[in-house]
C-alpha cells in the first residue's frame, strides 16, 4: 500500500518526531511511505483569515504534490480538515480542477483514521505504564468526525491509565491566527484547558494535532506544570519500539 505523508508545516518545523513516528508506524504495517518534498502548507492559516487567493495558491501546490498518491496520510486533523472541508470550495469555479481536487480529497486521511479504518490496526503492541489524558482536537472531531479512532488506539496500550479530561471537547484556544489576534481571550481559554489537565493529575497529555499541543504545552510550561505533551503517533511508536 503506497502512502504519501502530508507532514504539515507545524510538524515539519517544530515537531519532526511526530512525523517520523507516523512514518515508522505506517511502515510497520506494510505501507510504502513516500514524502513529496515539494509540499508546503495546506493553506489553512490564509483561508481562515479570509485570504482565499493565498489559500488557493497553497492548495494548488498541495495538489501538485499529492495528485498521484494512492493514500495521503497526515498527523493532523486540522490540516486534513482543511483539505476535506474547504478544498472543494476553493475550486468551486473551476470544474476541471474541482474534479481532480475532489479525487485527492477522498484519498486524504488523518493518522488515527487511517490506522483504524484503513489499516485495521488498533493494537500496535505498545506498553505505557503511565497516567495519560486525551484532548480531542476540534477540527478532527467536528470537521472529520473523528471520535472513536484515537480512543481505540489508546485503550489497546498495555498498562496505560487513561483519565477522562473534564470539558474535553472545549477548544484549547489555539485557532491559528486567533491565538495572536485575540491573544488574551485565547490565553483565558488555554488557561482553563490547563486547569482541567492538571485536575486529572496525568503525566502525559495526548492529542492528534500539534497546533493544540503546542498551544497547551506553551501554557503548561508557563504554569510550571510537569505534564508532558505527546502526539498520539509518538506515543504509539515510542511505547512499542523494539518489539
Amino acid at each position, binding site marked *: 500500500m503506497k502512502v504519501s505523508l502530508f507532514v504539515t508545516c507545524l510538524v515539519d518545523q517544530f515537531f519532526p518526531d511526530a512525523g517520523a513516528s507516523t512514518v515508522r508506524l505506517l511502515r510497520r504495517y506494510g505501507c510504502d511511505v513516500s514524502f513529496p518534498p515539494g509540499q508546503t502548507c495546506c493553506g489553512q492559516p490564509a483561508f481562515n483569515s479570509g485570504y482565499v487567493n493565498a489559500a488557493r495558491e497553497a492548495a494548488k501546490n498541495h495538489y501538485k504534490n499529492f495528485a498521484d498518491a494512492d493514500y495521503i496520510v497526515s498527523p493532523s486533523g486540522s490540516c486534513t480538515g482543511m483539505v476535506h472541508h474547504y478544498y472543494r470550495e476553493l475550486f468551486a469555479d473551476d470544474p476541471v480542477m474541482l474534479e481532480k481536487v475532489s479525487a485527492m480529497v477522498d484519498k486524504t486521511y488523518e493518522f488515527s483514521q487511517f490506522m483504524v479504518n484503513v489499516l485495521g*490496526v488498533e493494537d500496535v503492541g505498545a506498553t505505557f505504564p503511565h497516567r495519560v489524558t486525551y484532548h480531542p482536537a476540534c477540527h478532527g472531531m467536528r470537521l472529520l468526525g473523528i471520535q472513536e479512532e484515537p480512543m481505540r488506539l489508546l485503550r489497546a496500550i498495555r498498562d496505560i491509565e487513561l483519565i477522562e479530561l473534564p470539558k474535553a471537547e472545549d477548544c484549547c*484556544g489555539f485557532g491559528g491566527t486567533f491565538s495572536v489576534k*485575540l491573544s488574551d481571550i485565547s490565553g483565558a481559554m488555554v488557561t482553563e484547558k490547563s486547569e482541567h489537565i492538571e485536575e486529572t493529575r496525568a503525566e502525559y497529555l495526548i492529542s492528534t494535532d500539534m497546533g493544540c499541543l503546542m498551544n497547551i504545552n506553551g501554557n503548561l510550561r508557563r504554569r510550571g506544570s510537569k505534564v508532558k505533551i505527546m502526539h498520539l503517533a509518538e506515543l504509539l511508536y515510542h511505547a512499542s519500539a523494539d518489539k
Partner: protein
Amino acid sequence: MTHQQPKTLKKRADIALHDDFLRKAVRFTTDRLRGRKEESSGALGDWEEWRERGRQVRIHTVANLDYYLGEFTKNMETAGGHVHFAADADEARKIVAEIADSKNTKIFAKSKSMISEEVHLNHMLEEKGIKVVETDLGEWIVQLAHETPSHIIIPAIHKNKSQIQELFEDEGHEKLAPETKVLAGFARRRMRETFEKADIGMTGCNFAIAESGSVVMFSNEGNARMVSTLPKTQIIMMGMERVLPTWVDLELMANLLPRSATGQKLTVYMSAVNGPRRAGELDGPEEVHVVVLDNGRSKILGDPEFQDVLNCIRCGACLNVCPVYRQVGGHAYGSVYPGPIGAVLTPLIAEDKKAWGELAYASSLCGACYVACPVKIPLHDMLVHLRRRHVEAGYSPVSEKIAFAGFGAAAKSSGVFNSAANAARWVQLHMIGDRSDQTDGPHGLEAAGPVAGWSNHRALPSPQKESFHDLWKLLKDEPAETPGGTDGKRDTHGA
C-alpha cells in the same frame, strides 16, 4: 457596561476578562445549561434526526418566506389584527411611537423581546416620557442595572445573586434577604402592579404560524401571557424570518427550542395570540398590532453563503457551548446579539460593516456552535466567509495583507517556503534560545513583535535543529520494523 462601551472587541473583552464575578457567573450557568441540554436532547431519541428535520423545515420556510409571510399577514388581518412592515429600526420605532401616542400611553409593559433590543425601543419610549417596564425577570434586572442583555435567552446571565439583591433593594428602598425565593417574590409583587396598570403590552414572537395567522410565544415566567392578555392594546414585534408554515411544524420547534436553550423538555408557558379579543371572549387585548421587521434581513435572503442564518430559532445553544463566550460573556461582543450567532448576524445586518466585521474574528473556529445548533446552521463556515468578505472589502490591516500576500507567493514553492521557515527556525534557535522551560513572564525578543500576545500566556515551542524535511534524508531508507501487538498479524499488504 451600557452607554459607553469601548469601541473595539479587544478592549471590551479585556474588561470582561478582568471581571471575575462575570466570568464565574457565565461559566456556572452555561455549564448547567449544557448538562441539561445533553440530558433532554438524549431523551428524545435520535437527536441528529430531529436536528435535520428542524433544518429542513427552516430552509423550506425561509426559501418561501414571501409566501408564508403573506399568508400569515392575511390570516392575522382577517382575525382583526393590524400588521405593519418596518424596513428598518427607525421605521419600527416610529410605528410603535404612533400607536403609543394614539393610546395616550403612560405605562408600557414588555415581555422579553430581543427584536425590541435590536431597534433600541426602550430609549425612544423613555424619551417620550413613557414608563417602560421589562417584565421578564432577567430583563428587569438588566433594566434596573441600566445595562443590555448579555445572552439572548438569559439576559442577566452575567449577574450573581448578591448583585441582584442590591439592585432590588435600591429599587424597592427595602432590605431583602439574599434568598432566591425572597428576591423572586419582590419581583413578582412589582410585576403584578405593572400588568394591571399598563396601557400597552408588548411581546416578541417565537414563531408566527402562517396557516392560522397566530403568534406563538414561549416563556417560563408567564409574563408573556400576562402582557398579552391584560393591557387593552398589544404590540407584537417580530423579525420577518420568524414564520413557520403550520402548527405541525411548531410541534417540532417546541421540542427543539427549549431543549436546546435551557434543557427543558417543554417551555413552561406556550401562548398563542390569534388576533384581538372576539365578541364573547373574557380576556385578551382589544387591539393587536404586529410589527414585522426587516432591518437588513432581506439583504441576506438570496445570498447563498448566508441565507441559512435566517433559519436561526434564537435558542442560544451556540452561546452556551462557545468557548469564547464562556470566557468573556455577551457584552464583550458589543452587539445586541452576542456569541457565535451574534458574530455572524451582526456584521450581516449592520450598516457599518467595517466596524462590526471584527466580530467574525471572535472565534477559534472550533465548530462547537454548529454541533449545538438545533437547525444545523454552519456558523463556523459563515465566520470564515465573513472574514473573506472583510478582507475583500479592504478592511483588514495592511501588515496582515502583506503577510498573506507573502504566504501565497511562498506556498507555491517548497524552496521558498521551506527556506523561509528554516530561516525563522534558525533565528529562534540562535537568537531567542530555548525558553520552553521558563515559567516566568516574557522577556527579550520573545516579548516583541506579533507573537507578544502569544507569549503573555504561553512559552514558545522549543526550537528544533532539524526540520522533518532534513530528517527525511535519513528516514527514507530506514528499513521497516516488524509489527507487534495483536493487530500485527493483520499485515498482509506487503511493502
